[in-house]
C-alpha cells in the first residue's frame, strides 16, 4: 500500500491525521470498547471459560435464522439497488412536471422511522389488513384465503419500501454530478439509452451506488423493529429478534453476542468487496492524475 515510486504529495503527514482525528478517536472511544467486550463475551461460555460453546449452540438453534436473515438482506438490497437505479435514471432524464412531483413523493418514506414502518406494515400486510381487504374488494383475491405476508415476502416488502427512497437520494445525487456534456457526447456518438446507462451513468457514479448498497445492507441486517412486528416469534425469524429473545428471557449474552458476531461477518464480507474496490479505484485515480 505504501507508494514506493514517489507519488506527488502523497503522504503529507499532518493534514489528514488532523482531519481524521476527532472522528476516529470518537469512534474508538465510544464504540471500540463495547464492541470488543461483545466479541470476547461470545467466546466465554456459561461457566466463564474460553470456549466455542456459544457458537455451537447458536449453530444448532439459529442456523436457519441466520440464513434467513442473510437471504432477506441480500434479496432486499439487490431489489432496492436495481429499482433505485432505474428510478434515479428516470429522474435524471425526465424534466416533466410528473417527474417533479415524483421527486418529492418518493422521499416520503425517508422520514418515517423504522419503528413506525413496522407498525404500518403490520397493519397493512395483515391477512385482514388494508392490502388484502382492498385486493378482495377489487375481486383479485378471496378474502377467506388472503395473501400471507408475515414472512420473507412481507418483510422484504417493508425493507424495500423504506430503503428505495434512501438509495434513490444518494444514487440520484451521484447521477446529478455527472455533467450533461458526457451524456450529450455519448448520445451524439449514437449511443442508445441503455448504453448510456450502463456505460456512462453507472460507472461514473459507482461510488454513490456502492455506498447506497452498503448502507442499505447494513441497515437491514441490524433492524429489529420491523421483523419483530411482522414475524416476531415465528420461525424462521431474523438474528435481531433471536438476540432479543436470548437476552430478555435467558440473559444469555454469550449466545446473543455470538449472533451479533455472525451478523457482523455478514456485513464484513460484503463491505470488503466495496472497500477493496474503492481502494483500488483511488490507486487508479492517482495514476491517472500523474
Amino acid at each position: 500500500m505504501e507508494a514506493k515510486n514517489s507519488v506527488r504529495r502523497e503522504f503529507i503527514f499532518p493534514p489528514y491525521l488532523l482531519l481524521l482525528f476527532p472522528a476516529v478517536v470518537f469512534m474508538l472511544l465510544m464504540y471500540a470498547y463495547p464492541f470488543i467486550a461483545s466479541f470476547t463475551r461470545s467466546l466465554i461460555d456459561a461457566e466463564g471459560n474460553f470456549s466455542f460453546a456459544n457458537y455451537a449452540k447458536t449453530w444448532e438453534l439459529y442456523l436457519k435464522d441466520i440464513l434467513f436473515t442473510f437471504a432477506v438482506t441480500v434479496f432486499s438490497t439487490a431489489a432496492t439497488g436495481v429499482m433505485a437505479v432505474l428510478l434515479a435514471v428516470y429522474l435524471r432524464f425526465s424534466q416533466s412536471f410528473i417527474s417533479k412531483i415524483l421527486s418529492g413523493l418518493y422521499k416520503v418514506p425517508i422520514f418515517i422511522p423504522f419503528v413506525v414502518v413496522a407498525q404500518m406494515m403490520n397493519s397493512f400486510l395483515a391477512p385482514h389488513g388494508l392490502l388484502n381487504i382492498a385486493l378482495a374488494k377489487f375481486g383479485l383475491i378471496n378474502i377467506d384465503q388472503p395473501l400471507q405476508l408475515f414472512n420473507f415476502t412481507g418483510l422484504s416488502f417493508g425493507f424495500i419500501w423504506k430503503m428505495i427512497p434512501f438509495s434513490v437520494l444518494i444514487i440520484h445525487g451521484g447521477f446529478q454530478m455527472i455533467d450533461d456534456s458526457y451524456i450529450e457526447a455519448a448520445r451524439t456518438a449514437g449511443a442508445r439509452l441503455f448504453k448510456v446507462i450502463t456505460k456512462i451513468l453507472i460507472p461514473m457514479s459507482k461510488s454513490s451506488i456502492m455506498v447506497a448498497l452498503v448502507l442499505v445492507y447494513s441497515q437491514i441486517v441490524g433492524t429489529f423493529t420491523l421483523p419483530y412486528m411482522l414475524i416476531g416469534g415465528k420461525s424462521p425469524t431474523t438474528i435481531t429478534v433471536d438476540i432479543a429473545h436470548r437476552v430478555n428471557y435467558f440473559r444469555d449474552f454469550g449466545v446473543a453476542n455470538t449472533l451479533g458476531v455472525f451478523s457482523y461477518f455478514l456485513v464484513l464480507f460484503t463491505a470488503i468487496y466495496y472497500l477493496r474496490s474503492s481502494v483500488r479505484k483511488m490507486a487508479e485515480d492517482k495514476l491517472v492524475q500523474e
Partner: protein
Amino acid sequence: MFSKKMLIVSLEIILLVVVFLLIIWPMMSLFIWSIAETWYWPNTLPQKIGFEYWKQALGLQKSLAIGAVSIVPAFFLSLMIAMIVVVISMLIAIPAGYALAKYRIPFGGFILFLFLMPNAFPQQPVFVNLLHIFTKLGLAGTVQGVILVHILVGLVFGVWITNATFKSIPPHMEEAARSVGAGKLRAFFRITLPLAAPGLLASAVFVFITSLDEFTGTFFVGLPFVNTLPMTLYSSSGYNMQFASVIAIILLIPSILFMALIQGVLKAEYVGGMG
C-alpha cells in the same frame, strides 16, 4: 413523434400512480388508526372515528387506559438533541470524509469500515455494554450521554456519505484553483465545498433523521430521565394502535420541516441539488 411523446407521458402517469399507491396506501393504515376510536372485524373502516387519541396525546385531555406521556416535551427534546447532533456530527464527519476521499491513508479501508460498525453489529448487546460504561462515567440518564450515542450512530451516515460525495468531485477542480495561487483552505471553501454541498446536505439530513428516530441506544442510555419521542412510541406501540399512529404522525413533522429547510437553503445556486 407525436405518439412517442404520448406513450412516454402515459407511462409516466402510470409510474406516478403506482408510486403514489405504493407509498401512500400503507400510510393510510397509520392515518386511519390515528382517528379510529372503535375498529374491529368485519368492518373495513372504523366503526367510530374521532380525535380522542390526538387530544390525549397532546395532553389536552387526561387518559386512563392509555398512557398519555409527555409527548410535547419529548418532541422538543428529540428535536433539540437532533439539531445538536447534526452540527457536531457534521463538524467531525466532513473533514474525516474528505480525508478518506482525497488521501491514500494506511488502513483507510479499515477506518472506513470502523464507521460502518454501529450498523453492522446488532445494537442490543453493544448498547448494554455502553450502559455499564456510561453509568460508571455518570453519563447514564443524561442528555449528554444520549447526544453522544446519537453522534455515534449518526457518524455512519455522516462519514460514508460525505466520503462518497468528495470522491465524486473531480480532483482537477481543486487543482485548477490551487494552480492559480489559491491556498488549500481557500480552494476547499470556494470550490470543493460548494460542489459537494448537495451530498453534504443530504448527509446532514440523514444524520438528523437518524438522531430523531434513534431508539435502542437512547433507551438504554437515557433511562430514566431522558424521554425522547421514539421512546414514547415504543411505550405505546404494539399495544395501542391509535396512540402509536398518532405519535408516528407527530414524528414525521420535524424531519419533513428539516428537509424543507435544507432544500430552501440549497436552491438555485447549486446545479441539480438533491432532488
